[in-house]
């Protein structure tokens, strides 16, 4: 696909010119870890969450936050804007084509996600002694599958939203349930059994647990990997079928 590196670089430049988006997607999750880690009680091991510290639980949650901000808020709104303003159509008249812009936008967001995740891990490790993932391959796999699941959802959102404004609105509305089940307000370890069972079947509930398990040195559970893969495949297919270029 010609033009992809140039388009990705351009998308990156454009993204970095939106200070608010950069802050919320890249800096804020690391900041969240920093703030929670500053609460002394959150640095003490707790019996009711399996002897872990609250800050240990919030590192994967902050990673889920990164993925949600980029995949459900930023990407759908950007792509819907590109469609609304005829930018995708305009590219369809060039040798490069609109698919390249779609790919560039996703690639840029993934690069940003990786950067934000490294930032979160660095803050956790350096400031609060949160161990780096003990099972790095499993951790990377969980991250990639989790990203694939929510980015596929974001693409469907971009496909069905009639306008950029509504894409943004839907993204914000989706943020709350998705992040709730990821444990942003009540970590999964502190959730009642039924709630945690439901969370297992949500894209970011599965992602957070898989990241958590890999961080602790275990291979992610098959259930969580399957849930993430299923979201990625189902929403990916729906996105391919429903995406409109104009």
């Amino acid at each position: 696909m010609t033009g992809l590196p140039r388009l990705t670089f351009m998308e990156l430049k454009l993204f970095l010119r939106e200070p608010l988006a950069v802050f919320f997607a890249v800096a804020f999750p690391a900041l969240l870890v920093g703030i929670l880690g500053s609460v002394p009680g959150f640095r003490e091991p707790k019996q009711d969450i399996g002897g872990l510290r609250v800050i240990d639980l919030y590192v994967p949650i902050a990673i889920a936050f990164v993925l949600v901000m980029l995949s459900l808020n930023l990407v759908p709104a950007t792509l819907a804007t590109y469609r609304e303003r005829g930018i995708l159509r305009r590219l369809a008249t060039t040798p490069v084509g609109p698919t390249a812009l779609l790919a560039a936008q996703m690639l840029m967001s993934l690069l940003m996600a990786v950067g934000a995740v490294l930032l979160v891990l660095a803050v956790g490790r350096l400031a609060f002694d949160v161990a780096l993932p003990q099972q790095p391959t499993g951790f990377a796999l969980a991250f990639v599958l989790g990203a694939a699941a929510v980015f596929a959802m974001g693409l469907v959102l971009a496909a069905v939203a009639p306008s950029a404004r509504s894409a943004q609105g839907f993204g914000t509305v989706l943020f709350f349930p998705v992040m709730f089940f990821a444990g942003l307000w009540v970590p999964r370890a502190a959730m009642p059994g039924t709630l945690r069972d439901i969370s297992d079947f949500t894209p970011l509930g599965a992602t957070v647990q898989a990241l958590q398990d890999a961080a602790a040195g275990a291979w992610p559970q098959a259930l969580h990997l399957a849930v993430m893969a299923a979201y990625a495949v189902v929403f990916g297919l729906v996105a391919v079928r429903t995406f409109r270029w104009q």
Partner: protein
Amino acid sequence: MQVIEVDNLRKQYRDHVAVQDISFTVERGEIFGIVGPNGAGKTTTVECVEGLRTPDGGSIKVLGMDPRRDGAELRHRVGAQLQESALPDRMKVWEALDLYASFYPRPADQRRLIDDLGLGDKRETTFGKLSGGQKQRLSIALALVGDPEIAVLDELTSGLDPNARRDTWDLIEQVRDGGVTVLLVTHFMDEAERLCDRVAVVDAGRVVALDSPSSLIARMDTAQRIRFRPASPLDDGLLIALPEVRSVRRNGVQVVVTGTGNLLQAVTSVLARNQIVAADLRLEQASLDDAYVALTGHAAVSD
């Protein structure tokens, strides 16, 4: 040599037929206009030429190729300026040109293009901060940055002020002089009359006339109009008897004569023979706008 051939094009949307039956050919090196009111099917036609839409009937050949089948090859050789197409607000002028130039194997000289379009001092300005005219000029620059053989320009002066429109017209003439064939869509008759070598007049999805602007005007039987105030009483019959005259009308003390051919000389010699002095004599040439109204029965600009 023909670079665009459109034969019996038909395109239907869910609820209405946008293009009934449109045929025309564009010769290499000319500025060819498609004129007509909003909703006449002009944009749909050029979108089929650009390969953005699939025709329901008829055939299109661009540089001898089918825009749907050979789209990849054609997109290297055809530059397009779309109606209502924008760029991301935070993209700078030079970045847009640089990016679009990178899509093509042999791009045009960006610096020259940017200067020719009068955007030299706007290189570092972001798209969102450009005026309507500047945006439009950037959009034209992007259509030309791939050094195309054909440029398809849709409503290129919509939203421009009169000065910017004139500058844009000069620019399009320069582009043509540089060897680019221009397919122009417009609902401004003055623009078509000024720029186009030939125009297809489109109304309700059909071509109602296709010729040079001057021939379309000359075809009307009221191509010329003379107004004057006779200093002494004048018998209309004297004028009506002339073969060049189509009609004689009184407008207060003013006489309005329409007709064709050498109308002015015919009228003035009759007046001279009858020793009638014509005061405030004015000759008005019909415009493409008049021809358009005569051809379609309604005015071009409805908004």
